[in-house]
């Protein structure tokens, strides 16, 4: 029997009923009195000087209330790395130059969306087109056009990671491989596009309702960009229809709505269209990978060297962090004694690239897991065995980077080995590929205000025993409201339905960095657990006095029953004690406070999840078409808080990561994205979904609340690599260039046939 009352139970989401009945109010649904509707004018050029913007005709259109350009702003440049001005490079409303097709140049507020749209056509912008560059390998050439002043070779950021003696280690290797890979872009495709309602009032206060992953960051970035004090801005996150990394930077909907509202002192709402969502928000970073891997004959890997050149797009965005994490996760989940990574992010005249679920790890995992299978093949070693020989283990230190406490990778290898054996001999043209992965449970770093990340929570116990939980955590669909409510209920010893969560409103909730890097369960979970424990101890003091128990007895609360631990039948009702305690305090409610910061927990994260995924495909050798039949994942994320939550994360991750491996891409022509609609952008749909199975491995993470760690983004990492390896197993062709489309498989098969004929 479980020692927990709430943790580990299959619980439906606390926000489920309002979402499935359609009664949840998203930002899109918010209507305020006298509210106006905004639209944004965007550049049709990938690179051009702005010579003149004439807004007079638009202003005269009946129904138009205001038109703003960059001249109506304080002219600051935004960026999340506020300590490094050269990385704050995005004006949002451009004043002198546009750098990609979709850069914003003006915004309109009108009585309705149609009028605002009509007004955009009346704004006259005179551009001087400049030569542009779209591919990072072209952008870093001496003769390439310069996208930002003073940036040599358009190299926006470099990152370096190294340990051991790589050059010496390669000399000792029996076998060395050098390979090149290319990873494509991917759109986040949130069901709710970026949107915001901004309301600036005559007292000089700005309130914003917006679809975001971090109310905290948006509040601070808005303050910077608008010359307001943070305390004068309140950011409220209503229910949010997806984020996946796209919604924790200031975007054009938020900024333009705020600028217009400040000009008019009226509420302004901006909802990006689906086309804008594809063309004028951030996206996954395309990468060119050059990898050198050396091993002993027995498969012991001695050294790895990685060079990556990424397509940054027009602005820095979260690029610096993504570039570092790409390097860190390129070593995962193996014990390389010698490792070197050099990453370069190049500016290009394309839509900016930034964070997306996995934060660089899906790319590095595809590359690493493809190459390790290639190495195993060269050496005649089983793919499971080579991973077992080199895989991370508990209490392993990644030199100078991270300390890994819990790690269930080897149990995952055992489970997937059993799964593959169970599938038996496969029919012709079927293959099972595997891919190992790991991921962080929140970044230890913060970009401003504090060097370390942090989470805080407040628990208020009311006179009827009901609990209000206040947290800055952002539920963007991943289920953090449910997870945190469960942690709170378990720690307090009350029912889940006793908890009411208030989240992501900077006006009433303690600060939290938000939902990125899979941080909410571990970081906010620890803060919530601590706040609940603080409140609980206050109740216990009163209960102990009331019950008159001997001080040698410990008290606990379980299922609303305060009792002596060793004699659970001897106790009192939690609800009665709370009522008496609060009456005795003249109505003063009980408040518990909690805070967590991963101080001195390495460079990256306080904890890591691990897993191994097996994908089975069936390839048609005539056409190259293939079907993803089964994806089985052995996953360890410490103590499972809510099994339904993990299953949801896994299925969503397979859909997203399978799409990254199989079909999703954003082809461009001279910087113009060619498939900016749901009809043209190929996603894995429900009917394309393979059979999925999750094999949950039992581990306990000492740093996590009740032993839990992340289960959100890590699951996005392995699928592309597993698909690539499965296709190779099925028909013997290796695709190093994502996505692995049927067309690429077809061409590789024909090439293989040609080579076969030649060698005969």
């Amino acid at each position, binding site marked *: 029997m479980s020692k927990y009352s709430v943790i580990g139970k299959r619980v439906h989401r606390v926000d489920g009923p309002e979402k499935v009945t359609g009664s949840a109010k998203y930002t899109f649904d918010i209507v305020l009195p006298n509210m106006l509707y905004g639209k944004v004018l965007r550049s049709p050029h990938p690179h051009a000087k702005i010579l003149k913007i004439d807004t007079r005709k638009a202003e005269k259109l009946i129904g138009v209330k205001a038109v703003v350009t960059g001249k109506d702003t304080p002219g600051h440049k935004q960026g999340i790395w506020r300590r490094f001005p050269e990385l704050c490079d995005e004006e949002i409303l451009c004043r002198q130059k546009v750098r990609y097709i979709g850069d914003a140049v003006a915004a309109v507020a009108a009585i309705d969306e149609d009028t605002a749209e009509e007004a955009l056509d009346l704004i006259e912008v005179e551009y001087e087109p400049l030569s542009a560059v779209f591919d990072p390998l072209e952008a870093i050439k001496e003769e390439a056009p310069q996208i930002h002043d003073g940036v040599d070779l358009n190299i926006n950021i*470099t*990152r370096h990671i190294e340990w051991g003696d790589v*050059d010496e280690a390669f000399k000792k290797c029996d076998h060395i491989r*050098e390979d090149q890979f290319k990873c494509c872009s991917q759109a986040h495709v949130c069901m709710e596009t970026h949107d915001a309602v901004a309301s600036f009032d005559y007292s000089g206060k700005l309130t914003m309702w917006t679809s975001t992953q971090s109310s905290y960051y948006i509040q601070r970035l808005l303050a910077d960009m608008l010359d307001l004090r943070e305390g004068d801005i309140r950011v409220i996150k209503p229910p949010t229809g997806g984020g996946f990394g796209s919604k924790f930077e200031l975007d054009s909907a938020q900024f333009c709505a705020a600028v217009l509202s400040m000009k008019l002192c009226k509420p302004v709402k901006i909802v990006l269209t689906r086309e804008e969502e594809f063309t004028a928000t951030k996206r996954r970073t395309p990468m060119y990978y050059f990898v*050198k891997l050396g091993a002993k004959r027995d498969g012991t890997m001695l050294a790895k*060297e990685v*060079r990556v050149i990424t397509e940054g797009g027009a602005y820095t965005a979260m690029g610096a962090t993504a570039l570092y994490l790409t390097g860190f996760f390129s070593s995962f989940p193996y014990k390389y004694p010698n490792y070197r990574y050099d990453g370069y992010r190049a500016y290009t005249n394309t839509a900016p690239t930034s964070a997306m679920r996995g934060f660089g790890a899906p790319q590095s995992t595809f590359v690493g897991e493809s190459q390790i299978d290639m190495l195993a093949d060269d050496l005649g070693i089983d793919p499971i065995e080579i991973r077992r020989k080199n895989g991370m283990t508990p209490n392993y230190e990644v030199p100078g980077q991270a300390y890994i406490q819990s790690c269930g990778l080897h149990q995952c290898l055992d489970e997937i080995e059993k799964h593959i054996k169970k599938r038996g001999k496969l029919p012709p043209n079927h293959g099972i590929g595997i891919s190992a992965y790991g991921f962080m449970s929140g970044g230890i770093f913060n970009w401003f205000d504090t060097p370390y990340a942090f989470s805080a929570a407040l628990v208020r116990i009311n006179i009827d025993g009901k609990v209000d939980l206040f947290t800055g955590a952002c539920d963007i669909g991943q289920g953090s409201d449910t997870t945190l409510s469960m942690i709170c209920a378990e720690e307090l010893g009350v029912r889940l339905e006793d908890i009411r969560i208030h989240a992501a409103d900077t006006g009433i909730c303690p600060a939290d960095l938000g939902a990125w890097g899979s941080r909410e369960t571990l970081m906010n979970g620890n803060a919530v657990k601590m706040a609940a424990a603080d409140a609980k101890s206050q109740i216990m003091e009163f209960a102990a006095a009331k019950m008159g128990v001997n001080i040698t007895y410990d008290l606990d609360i379980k299922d609303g029953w305060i009792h002596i631990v060793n004699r659970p039948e001897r106790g009192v009702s939690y609800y009665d004690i709370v009522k008496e305690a609060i009456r005795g305090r003249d109505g003063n409610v009980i408040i518990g406070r909690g805070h967590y910061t991963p101080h001195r927990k390495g460079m990256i994260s306080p904890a890591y999840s691990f897993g191994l995924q097996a994908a089975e495909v069936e390839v048609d050798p005539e056409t190259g078409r293939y079907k993803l039949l089964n994806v089985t994942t052995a996953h360890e994320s410490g103590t499972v808080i809510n099994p339904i939550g993990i299953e949801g994360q896994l299925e969503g991750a397979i859909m997203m990561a399978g799409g990254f491996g199989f079909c999703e891409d954003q082809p461009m022509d001279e910087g113009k994205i060619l498939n900016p609609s749901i009809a043209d952008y190929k996603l894995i749909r429900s009917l394309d979904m393979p059979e999925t199975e999750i094999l949950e491995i039992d581990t306990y993470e000492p740093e996590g609340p009740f032993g839990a760690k992340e289960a959100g983004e890590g699951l996005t990492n392995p699928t592309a690599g597993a698909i690539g390896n499965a296709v190779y197993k099925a028909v013997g062709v290796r695709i190093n260039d994502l996505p692995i489309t049927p067309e690429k498989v077809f061409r590789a098969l024909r090439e293989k046939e040609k080579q076969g004929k030649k060698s005969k």
Partner: protein
Amino acid sequence: MSYKCPVCIKVSSSAMDLARHMIGRGDKIHKDWISSKGFKYSELLALQFKSFGGEGYKALSEVLEKETKTKD
């Protein structure tokens, strides 16, 4: 031994580490110092991303070894 950045407060444990810092930082003051030593910043970068082995860092670290080494 320690290696002190000639233009900011950064102290590194080796000339290679300091070269990584200076090229990685890439702002005007660091680039100006690199140029004053006869290097072209863009060429050092190009050396780095065109081949394995960290050749750009190595080239700069040879100068830093001579000019920035201090006894602790």
